[in-house]
C-alpha cells in the first residue's frame, strides 16, 4: 500500500494505461489483439491532437490521464465505440466525438484505478474534459506519453503527474 513516502513513476502509469487501452479496444472497439500495439514512448506533448483528460487523485498521488488522437483518429475511435460503419462516420458531430472520447478516457481511467488498487486503493476519479491543442506540464509535474496504434488510428495516452521531490521514488512493484 502507498504511504506518504512512496511514489510511482510516470512510466509505470503509462504501462498500466496502455494495458487498459488494449483491453478497452478489444471489448469496446471490436479490435483483435494484433490491431492494437504500443509503438513508442516519449516525453513530448503531442501536437495536432485533441482528446479527453480525467484526473485520478489521492492524498499520495495526483495524475491526469489523457487519451488523444488527430481529427481522423478521434472520429474513427468514436465511430468504432458507437459501432458505426465507415460511411456513417461523417454523421458524427463534434459533440458526439467529445462525448465519446470523454467516455473512452473515463473507462480507461477506471480500469487504471482498478489495476492500481493494490498500490494505491485511495484513488478517486474526476469527470472527463475534452481539450483541443497541446497540453503542457508545469515545472513541478512529470510528463510522459505512449503512442499506440489502434486499428488504423494513432492515439496517445498522456500521463501528467504531480511530482513530489521529497518522496522516495520507486520503480513500481515487480510483477
Amino acid at each position: 500500500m502507498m504511504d506518504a513516502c512512496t511514489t510511482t513513476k510516470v512510466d509505470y502509469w503509462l504501462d498500466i494505461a496502455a494495458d487498459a487501452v488494449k483491453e478497452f479496444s478489444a471489448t469496446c472497439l471490436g479490435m483483435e489483439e494484433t490491431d492494437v500495439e504500443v509503438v513508442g514512448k516519449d516525453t513530448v506533448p503531442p501536437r495536432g491532437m485533441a482528446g479527453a483528460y480525467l484526473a485520478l487523485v489521492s492524498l499520495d498521488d495526483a495524475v491526469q490521464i489523457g487519451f488523444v488522437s488527430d481529427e481522423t483518429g478521434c472520429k474513427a475511435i468514436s465511430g468504432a465505440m458507437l459501432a458505426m460503419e465507415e460511411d456513417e462516420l461523417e454523421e458524427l458531430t463534434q459533440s458526439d466525438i467529445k462525448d465519446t472520447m470523454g467516455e473512452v478516457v473515463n473507462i480507461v481511467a477506471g480500469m487504471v484505478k482498478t489495476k492500481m488498487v493494490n498500490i494505491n486503493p485511495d484513488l478517486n476519479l474526476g469527470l472527463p474534459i475534452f481539450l483541443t491543442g497541446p497540453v503542457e506540464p508545469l515545472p513541478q509535474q512529470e510528463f510522459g506519453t505512449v503512442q499506440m496504434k489502434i486499428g488504423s488510428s494513432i492515439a496517445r495516452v498522456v500521463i501528467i503527474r504531480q511530482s513530489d521531490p521529497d518522496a522516495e521514488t520507486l520503480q513500481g512493484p515487480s510483477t
Partner: protein
Amino acid sequence: MKVLIVDDSKAMRMIVKRTLRQAGFNDIDVDEAGNGKEAIEKINADKPDLVLCDWNMPEMTGIECLEELNKAGSDVKFGFVTSEGTPEMRARASEAGALFLIAKPFTADTFKENLAGVLVSS
C-alpha cells in the same frame, strides 16, 4: 418492463441500450437521464422496473442517487454500470442496496449474467 439508463454520456447511454438488445432484452421500454437528480425525477414520475446507473456524474452521483432513493423508501431495482469496478466500490454499492455493479468495459454476456434475475430475455 421499463428500464431507466442514467449516465452523463449520451454515447454511453446509447451503448448500454445497444448492449441490452444484444443481451436479448428486447421487450423493454428504455428511458434516459443525464445525472442522479434527473434520474430521481424520472423514477418518481415513471416508476421504472430497473435503473442502470453510472457512478461518477455531475450534479448528483449514482451512489448519492441510490442513497436518496433509500431515504425516500423507494424499492426500485437498481444496478450500477460504471468505470469504477474496485472491490471497495462493489462493497459500497452492495451496502447501499444495488443489485449488481457492472464494470465498464462490458459485454452483452456480462449484461445477461447480471440482469438474468431482473429482466426477462427473449
